[in-house]
């Protein structure tokens, strides 16, 4: 118990002293996670929306595949992308392995099915009357799509935030594709694992506190985004 209290106190001191190494790790983590989430959302939200509103042959199969991909282990993605980006790999010539771009690639593959599947779920739950109402009030196809998206916004924002939470907390992809290079690809989770292996817990605990704080901030953001119209839905 003493050990934990001592680590917490030292971690708090480290946070307060604005330790540059600590904050650079946080910066890399946030940057990589934000870029991954942005790319996955830009592709996943329209994909999920399209799957939800369109009737096409094999729709159930597509949704089943998406739901299956939710359980994709990070190490499997790490291995797959590693095979592509390593020197012998198909994309080896790009020299992306052990760069933040490699982490982003893996993380996008990880959370794209999350964003798409939860968007499908959020849009499918939207009452059919919204589409009809928008159309009869004179909305064109894009305006109608926007009206439906707007009504599904709480579910979609929730999906994006859950996806961000997934990538900021994952370690397999960041370790296998980023290589945990100090000052370059070291993220909060890879740094925590390394410090734990070294038996140095102060930095690990400080990063743990920040990870929790980021998660809390994300949830506050979600509440704010839902605003007063999200309260009783």
């Amino acid at each position: 118990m003493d050990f934990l209290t001592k680590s917490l106190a030292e971690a708090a001191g480290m946070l307060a002293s604005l330790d540059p190494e600590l904050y650079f790790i946080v910066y890399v983590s946030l940057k990589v996670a934000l870029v991954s989430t942005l790319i996955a959302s830009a592709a996943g939200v329209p994909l999920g929306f399209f799957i939800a509103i369109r009737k096409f042959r094999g729709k159930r199969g597509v949704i089943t595949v998406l739901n299956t991909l939710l359980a994709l282990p990070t190490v499997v993605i790490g291995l797959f992308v590693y095979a592509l980006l390593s020197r012998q790999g198909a994309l080896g010539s790009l020299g992306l392995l052990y760069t933040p771009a490699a982490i982003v690639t893996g993380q996008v593959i990880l959370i794209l099915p999350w964003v798409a599947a939860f968007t499908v779920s959020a849009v499918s739950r939207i009452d059919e009357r919204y589409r009809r109402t928008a159309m009869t009030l004179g909305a064109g196809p894009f305006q109608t799509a926007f009206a439906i998206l707007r009504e599904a916004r709480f579910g979609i924002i929730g999906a994006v935030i859950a996806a961000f939470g997934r990538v900021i907390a994952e370690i397999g992809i960041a370790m296998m594709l980023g290589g945990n290079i100090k000052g370059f690809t070291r993220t909060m989770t890879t740094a925590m694992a390394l410090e734990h292996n070294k038996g140095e817990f102060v930095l690990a605990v400080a990063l743990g506190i920040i990870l929790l704080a980021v998660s809390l901030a994300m949830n506050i953001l979600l509440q704010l985004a839902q605003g007063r119209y999200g309260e009783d839905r």
Partner: protein
Amino acid sequence: MTLYDLTLVQVQFGALRALDIDRLSLPENSACALLGPNGSGKTTLLHVLALLRPPTRGAVSFMGEPVSWREKTLLPLRRKVVLVDQHPIMFSTTVIKNVSYGPKMRGESRSFQKRIALECLDRVGMKEYADRPAHRLSGGETQRVAIARALACGPRVLLLDEPTAGVDIENQSVVEKIIFDLCSEKNMSILFSTHNPIQAERLARSKIYLSAGRLAAPAAENRFPARVLQQNGLLALIDNREIHTGPPPEIFSTGSFVSIDPEKIRVYANARGNSGPRNGWLAAKVLQISAETDRIRVVLDAGKAGGTLLTALLKAGDVRQNRIVPGDSVQITLDPDALRIEKPPA
């Protein structure tokens, strides 16, 4: 110019033919009521007229222009019609933003959107609700805001799907008053569906009856599942009560439907000392009497155990002569040609 022309229009949902209209023309500036039982195709017809659902087969012409159902050409036409759903749904924002949605979609300026939205809200008595969250309104308030939202689009045609269904009495009379006022508008046609013939009579200038997806005569008001018996040309209504029809009907089948023309029902007050059943006569009780433009609507309970409601449309003189008042026990007979027997589906 006719507003709508429908020719051989069919709407099919899988095996079910929800709508099957050979020909229907609606004139401009009409105030029309759409009547028919549940599942008769009223909502489907309104969706076709609102240009929201292309028919499976057939041609629709709107304001003299054939509807091609291609999104590009459809949008300008659809912007002339607005449908208010039976249970309207509000966008999850304020009342005023809901009402200004139509003008916004039409690219109107913000000041115009606000002005027209407030005007329309005022018209339905909901101006003071402008800044409230729309999804927290009651059913009646939602219906009124939905009508305001439709009016803000400045439609040439306003379609209302059972506008007073599921609305409390107080709001029902408010909504009826709004529809009554709208029916007298010069540049707008209005078509509303209802189960209430009295409401239809009061508000509309013309009526359309639908039965099993097809246009029907007003007899569709009195439509019953029937068992047709060959002997003596008798018909049995839902509670096995037999009615004389004169000559035997052409179709003899179980599981058929029979419609009784309300104008061909004769109602006689029970003569004193002669209230017992007579051959070919049917005992009934008068439930309701109301005035229509040129006739008197008499609603009768003709069931043996109650619950078989028949509507008769009588001449005012006949009602006066027979001294029919609500609550009376009466005798009814049907003219030989009062019955229309529907051929059961193959």
